[in-house]
């Protein structure tokens, strides 16, 4: 019973590590890395929900009766590509912040804002 939930524990562990990076680090690129890890943990959650014991990849073939659930695969497939597009947008904003403030550390940006 207990061991049957280990996939969720891995997801929670990864999610919390990503969350920790987001809130505890001041570097904007590091924050984005944390966000990516958080995002990936959600992907892993969906894919592990889709897994069926003894199931095969959801490509129809003769002699296979048990397939994994294709619906979460579809959702995550598109989510990954959308994720990279939004991450790139975040990086673009960081590059512009660096040009404006000459820093990608939260504290320094805050200081400069307070001074002006």
């Amino acid at each position: 019973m207990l061991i049957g939930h280990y996939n969720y524990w891995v997801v929670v562990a990864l999610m919390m590590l990503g969350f920790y990076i987001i809130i505890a680090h001041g570097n904007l690129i590091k924050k984005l890395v944390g966000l990516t890890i958080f995002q990936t943990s959600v992907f892993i959650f969906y894919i592990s929900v889709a897994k069926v014991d003894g199931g095969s990849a959801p490509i129809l073939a003769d002699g296979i009766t048990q397939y994994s659930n294709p619906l979460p695969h579809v959702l995550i497939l598109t989510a990954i590509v959308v994720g990279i597009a939004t991450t790139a947008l975040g990086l673009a904003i960081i590059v512009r912040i660096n040009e404006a403030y000459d820093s990608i550390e939260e504290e320094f940006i805050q200081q400069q804002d307070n001074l002006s």
Partner: protein
Amino acid sequence: MVGVVVAIIWMKDLIAVVMLLGIYGLLTASFFMAMDAVDVAFTEASVGAGISTLLLLVAIAKTKRKEHPSRHKPLLALLVVVITGGLLIYGTYDMPIFGMADAPAHTHVAQRYIEDSYDEIGIPNIVTSVLSSYRGFDTFGEVVVIFTAGLGIIGLLSTVNGTGTRKKLPTINDSIEDQHIVLRIVGKILIPFILLFALYVQFHGEYGPGGGFQAGVIFGAGIILYAMLFGMDIARRVISQSLIQLIAAFGVLLYGAVGVVSFLNGGTFLDYNVLLENPVAGQHLGILLIELGVGMTVASVIIIIFFNFAGRKGPQQISDDLGA
């Protein structure tokens, strides 16, 4: 995987962090493979381990390499994280057991996709038929999101300011371009095959793992490799910026147009049954067209993103750092 992430937290050198993130992406892809999600593993391997690592590296080259030691108190953050994690773990006890065939997720609409999709759509890859036919509307939305992200990056980073004084920008690739003849020749041999493979993935997505999203990413990666090996200036001459923007918009339009045509033929939006006399053949045509639209948009948006990042002027000392 957890170990790699813990290492990411301690690292201060951002380049090492990004490399670890690449390893993490590859591990995630292998995990997806073990979970029978071949299409997803394919996407994650090309996106997580390839493109995102590359983009982060380019962004670091344009900003700073070292992380400043933080003066935040990590204890409070740790407390929040532990409490949230504990609550989430407590929540998992209500979740179905891993791999159970009669979990709620498998008992609703998924069963119908597995049983009927071959008769209705006529292609063996269920993921592709759900992606582009049953849930074509969602996918359309996602393509629009990707296109919008591309637009946003053009707006934020576009180097064409109308000043007309565009010098040769110092890019991170200049030194690679001059020195590594082996890399260039191997690249020259590999790039045609990468592009060919992308096309194979694009048009074979109905039968095996693959489809527009993966093909777009691989195609974009091939072009980016070209730009890195031969320098931005040559790559810009090969692929004109305005043409690639046109292709990105055309991909979205193609997708939308298929939907509108099915409107005009008396069906609902993105109902491919009415495209041709035979509903299954209509589905084939519809899926082929919209996958083409997806592939075009994704590939060109990725190229746009890379060109805009790499064309941006970064601090000189960091570009020297990378080149050395």
